[in-house]
């Protein structure tokens, strides 16, 4: 800045002032610290957020609440319950032909990570954890399908039960895919939606297949 080289401050003007800028209460956290509230409030707030997201998944509207505050509690609960329900299915009792707990876990999370990376590489505007959050929450219809399948299998394992399970799992698979597409496809450039939807379709197809071929011992 050559023009400022000859600026000099006369000696008699005091150069002083406050260096800190008074901060108004911009964010609600300034008013109260969440560390002091009772534990019940914290838990209830988080539970309410999770519950609201479940409702969003059941009726997929184009709302940004699911995307904005992401959390991974819901996906974790769904993943663990799905993996637990897929236990105990074996054709041979020594080493089972059904998926292990860790296998289901790894498939869901690894698959979600791959889809997220893929959508980011295709030029998506959604962040990593937001995408994981959406994909995890949209596993909920498939968990419901698993529950229904287990109940149906309690009644018997014949052809009728297979057809019923096929219809239920198929419907839930379509619902999952549509729900996650409703949230994720908006963040892509319009002509590449199909490229993002296909891996999601494959991912939920693999999970549905694991659910459908589950036969308890």
């Amino acid at each position, binding site marked *: 800045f050559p023009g400022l080289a000859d600026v000099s401050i006369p000696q008699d003007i005091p150069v002083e002032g406050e260096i800190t800028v008074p901060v108004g209460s911009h964010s609600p956290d300034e008013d109260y610290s969440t560390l002091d509230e009772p534990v019940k409030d914290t838990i209830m707030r988080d539970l309410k957020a999770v519950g609201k997201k479940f409702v969003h998944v059941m009726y997929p509207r184009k709302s940004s609440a699911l995307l904005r505050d992401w959390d991974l509690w819901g996906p974790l609960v769904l993943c663990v319950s799905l993996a637990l329900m897929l236990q105990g299915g074996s*054709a041979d009792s020594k080493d089972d032909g059904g998926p292990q707990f860790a*296998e289901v876990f790894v498939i869901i999370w690894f698959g979600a990570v791959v889809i997220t990376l893929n959508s980011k*590489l295709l030029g998506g505007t959604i962040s990593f954890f937001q995408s994981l959050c959406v994909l995890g929450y949209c596993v909920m219809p498939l968990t419901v399908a698993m529950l229904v399948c287990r109940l149906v299998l309690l009644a018997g394992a014949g052809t009728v039960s297979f057809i019923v399970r096929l219809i239920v799992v198929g419907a839930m698979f379509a619902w999952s895919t549509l729900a996650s597409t409703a949230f994720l496809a908006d963040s892509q450039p319009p002509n590449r939606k199909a*490229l993002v939807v296909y891996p999601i379709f*494959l991912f939920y197809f693999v999970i549905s297949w694991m659910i459908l071929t589950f036969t308890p011992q």
Partner: protein
Amino acid sequence: QMWQAGKRQASRAFSLYANIDILRPYFDVEPVQVRARLLESMIPVKMINFPQKIAGELYGPLMLVFTLVAILLHGMKTSDTIIREGTLMGTAIGTCFGYWLGVSSFMYFLAYLCNAQITMVQMLSLLGYGLFGHCITLFVTYNIHFHSLFYIFWLVVGGLSTLRMVAVLVSRTVGHTQRLILCGTLAALHMLFLLYLHFAYHKVVEGILDTLEGPNMPPFQRVARDIPVISNAVLNTTAKTIALTL
């Protein structure tokens, strides 16, 4: 202390994102392009005197590998394969990715030895699109269990995609010996992989393993047992009637 940890995490996250950006240009495709390339992978090119252009794209091949994994899982489940050490999903993923990455690297190494003009990404892409034929064949033959149908598909579909890959490679290599080595290995590996995928996961492997364990195990079976008899019978009769009317 916390500042140090935060800074370290931020720099690690940043390096992760920087790594992703390296792959970004390979995913820059349109759905139309992917569809065109899928169909092209079955059409052998005629012009082998002129180096053919290979698109260095990774989206299509990656999706095809995952599709192959899904189809393999379906096949393993319907043929009731019991994996002793390891898991069903792990085996499927390991097989498909191992084939794609391993054979690509091996062919790239051979291409380097034979002075072929091909880069690693192009090789990955070429082999990946060649898996489209595998996907179609396995998808059809895991559901309809006719061995003769499988052989026809193996020759026709597998042969077409092999011919395409071979033609592209031939157009990029000079010298007869080199062309022979390169294309021979690729054709052999590609066709043998399809054969392996069909036979290793189609029949019931447990029969072989269980005969080592006890004398009163059920005999070696060749039909699918997991899916109910109805859908199997429906598909088989459909295929039979189609074959009769043709």
